């Protein structure tokens, strides 16, 4: 896009700024717009689960404008602040939460190379930034000068810090299988038929996927792990004292995080933007076939990933409206006594599996992982080698396959 603008004659820095802005707005819309859709979806789904109708009137049919109406109401609502609150932190907290949730989207790829910023340590970045969301919650709980809020914040802190451990272990498994932390590469290595998804790579990844789901639900504070805002115990937990726009920022952060962890699950385990059947490849589309074909491929991928992530979000909603809430000690038990050991064992298992059967359960299916665009992917920054102006430098710094250069031949699958 930036090149396109430069081509129009705009100065480079303007072009870059515009491109960055557009990207930011797009991502913002994923969160804000996504939150609107998901809130509506949650209301409808909850209603259907509970044998009700849910919103029916706003916006004509299905009440599809209900969340917009709610949003307008929230905008118009007075932002109250309790008297004893720490004003600065109280105001800051929702934005901290939201920014963390938003920032993590930078590294999440939506299709092959459709990514805010392709990071070499993408997985790491996403998990790290997502962990910052808890700051907003803690600050909100502290600054509200309410005991219920403080309870909520403390629960959140304990819970999120604990669940980051098994979550990290779960995330490491696909990283290990793909041999990279780059989310784009990880996604692309699962190209092919459904059998090449890491979910079906071996039994251990299959199990660890469910551990990941558990931890993800817990780390984004959804039922049955929504201890921080348990309404039957803590009134509303950390956001008891919030109203209006600030409250809605928490809300958007929550839905943004849900979408993010679902998207991450999709990329790490469910093949990312690769559908169960490689339709585009069967039809003969690929990056090599031409520019329009590349766009078609990306659009299909985008739809795939959005679909998977949405399914993940819907799954969380389903759980929320079905299960009772756990107690805080049970939540911690789940994490420390079940998720962490299981994740550790599965991690070790997947490691050994990878060592002895690197082809996975279905080695003959689809294509060998990352066969087609292997060389291209492994290039610095995922750029076509010829197009990289930094090629010379990179060849001196990181060029080629460093492992092979060191004389350590990787094990060939037997």
């Amino acid at each position: 896009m930036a090149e396109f603008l430069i081509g129009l004659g705009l100065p480079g820095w303007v072009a870059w700024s515009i491109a960055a802005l557009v990207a930011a707005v797009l991502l913002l819309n994923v969160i804000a717009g996504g939150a609107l859709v998901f809130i509506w979806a949650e209301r409808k789904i909850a209603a259907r689960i509970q044998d009700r109708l849910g919103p029916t009137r706003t916006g004509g049919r299905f009440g599809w404008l209900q969340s917009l109406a709610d949003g307008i109401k929230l905008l118009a609502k007075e932002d109250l602040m309790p008297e004893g609150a720490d004003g600065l932190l109280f105001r800051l907290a929702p934005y901290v939460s939201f920014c963390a949730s938003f920032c993590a989207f930078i590294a999440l790829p939506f299709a092959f190379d459709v990514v805010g910023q392709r990071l070499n340590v993408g997985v790491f970045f996403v998990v790290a930034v997502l962990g910052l969301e808890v700051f907003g919650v803690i600050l909100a709980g502290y600054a509200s000068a309410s005991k219920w809020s403080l309870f909520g914040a403390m629960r959140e802190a304990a819970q999120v810090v604990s669940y980051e451990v098994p979550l990290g272990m779960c995330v490491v498994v696909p990283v290990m299988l793909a041999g990279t932390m780059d989310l784009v590469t990880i996604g692309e290595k699962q190209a092919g038929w459904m059998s090449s998804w890491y979910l079906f790579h071996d039994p251990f990844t299959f199990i660890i996927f469910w551990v990941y789901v558990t931890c993800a639900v817990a780390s984004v504070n959804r039922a049955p792990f929504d201890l921080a805002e348990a309404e039957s115990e803590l009134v509303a937990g950390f956001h008891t004292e919030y109203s209006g726009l600030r409250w809605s920022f928490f809300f958007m952060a929550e839905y943004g995080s849900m979408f993010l962890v679902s998207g991450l699950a999709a990329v790490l385990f469910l093949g990312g933007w690769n559908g169960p059947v490689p339709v585009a490849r069967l039809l003969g589309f690929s990056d090599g076939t031409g520019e329009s074909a590349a766009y078609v491929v990306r659009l299909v991928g985008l739809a795939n990933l959005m679909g998977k992530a949405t399914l993940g979000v819907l799954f969380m909603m389903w759980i929320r409206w079905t299960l009772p809430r756990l107690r805080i000690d049970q939540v911690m038990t789940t994490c420390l006594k079940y998720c962490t050991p299981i994740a550790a064992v599965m991690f070790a298992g997947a490691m050994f599996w990878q060592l002895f059967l690197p082809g996975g359960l279905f080695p003959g299916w689809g294509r060998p992982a990352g066969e087609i665009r292997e060389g291209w992917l492994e290039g610095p920054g995922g750029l076509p080698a010829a197009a990289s102006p930094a090629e010379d430098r990179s060849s001196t710094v990181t060029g080629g396959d460093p492992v092979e250069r060191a004389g350590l031949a990787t094990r060939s699958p037997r």
Partner: protein
Amino acid sequence: MPDLIEDDPRIIEFDVRTDEMLVNMGPQHPSTHGVLRLVLRTDGEIVSETEPHIGYLHRCAEKIGENLSPRQWIPYTDRLDYLAAMNMNLGWALTVEKLMRHEVGEKARHLRVLISELNRISSHLVGMGAYGLDLGTFSPFLYAFREREKILDLFEEACGARLTYSYITVGGATADLPPGWLQRCEAFLDQFEPIIKEYHALLTTNAIFVKRTAGIGVLSRAMAIDYGCSGPVLRGSGVDQDMRRDGESLYTGMYDGYAFEVAVQKEGRYPRDHSYPTVPSEAVLGDCWHRFFVRMLEVVQSMDLVRQAIDRYAACPEPLSEPLKLFEKLPVGDAYLETEAPKGQMGFYIVGNGTPIPWRVRARSSSFSNLSVTHELCRGCLIADVPAIVGSLDIVMGEIDR
């Protein structure tokens, strides 16, 4: 009594120096069932003291009763346990009848059984649904209310009201059942019966539900008796006591010829004539799970009783006995009668002085006694257990504050 606290072995002490916090739960808290206010003394997440504050719903109902004739006071009994108004009507009507030595006809007897057991079902449905809500699951609540609405429809058809019925009255009931009502009632029961399995699946046997309730808030048999607990709370602790069987003959006579087994765990087993789920191994007799389960059993038991009552009611040839006059003179003397309301033993006391207006009216509420164990049960539990325990007692503030 600080010494009492010092000696209490249930108090948990930490080496970590933490500050105790007084937390106000209610009267507007989402899970305090109306306007109950609990003051919690917490140490982190652990509750060391729970003090219930009541009186937010006090309406001087008893005093009003001393200025109205017994039949006039019937609508006020509706507002005691507003979830089981029929049973409140029945208790008061029976007490007055006891004072007046009046006996109702056979048809009215069966009608009363029919209606009060139906109301027991609806009351327990609320208790069940709201308990799910207390534990953080919303859906069972609505499932329960869906069925309760159908019962309310039936009641509405019978008496015109959906919450405060004033249907059962001194000397019988205000009106006979409309034609076709019995068939609709039977139809309801038939469609309702399989739905109970859903409730068991969603709550009773749900692993998280069991984890949240089993072994929590254990009310020992002795403590339950000491505190005067009654109803499902008492039976949940394994005490085999049910006023319908053990009460005064005036009341138990109403159930003459009805077959039912008190829902209580005897020798480690519940009566097993239905396919109930098995008791989870973590559950201790007297804990929240058992109290909840006893209620679920009583729903089935009441359905049985309603079916029996329908048959008997339909078989009665004579017309329904007429209620007494609005201002019937009361004899000099007093009467006290306890009935088995859904929440427990509901007692009414009346003193007549020869005028139509009673000289003294008192109500003995089961929820009040049941609530009084909260501070015992909640000592040492976690904050999240407080709603679980209070919810398992299934209190109604209208009855406590009167």
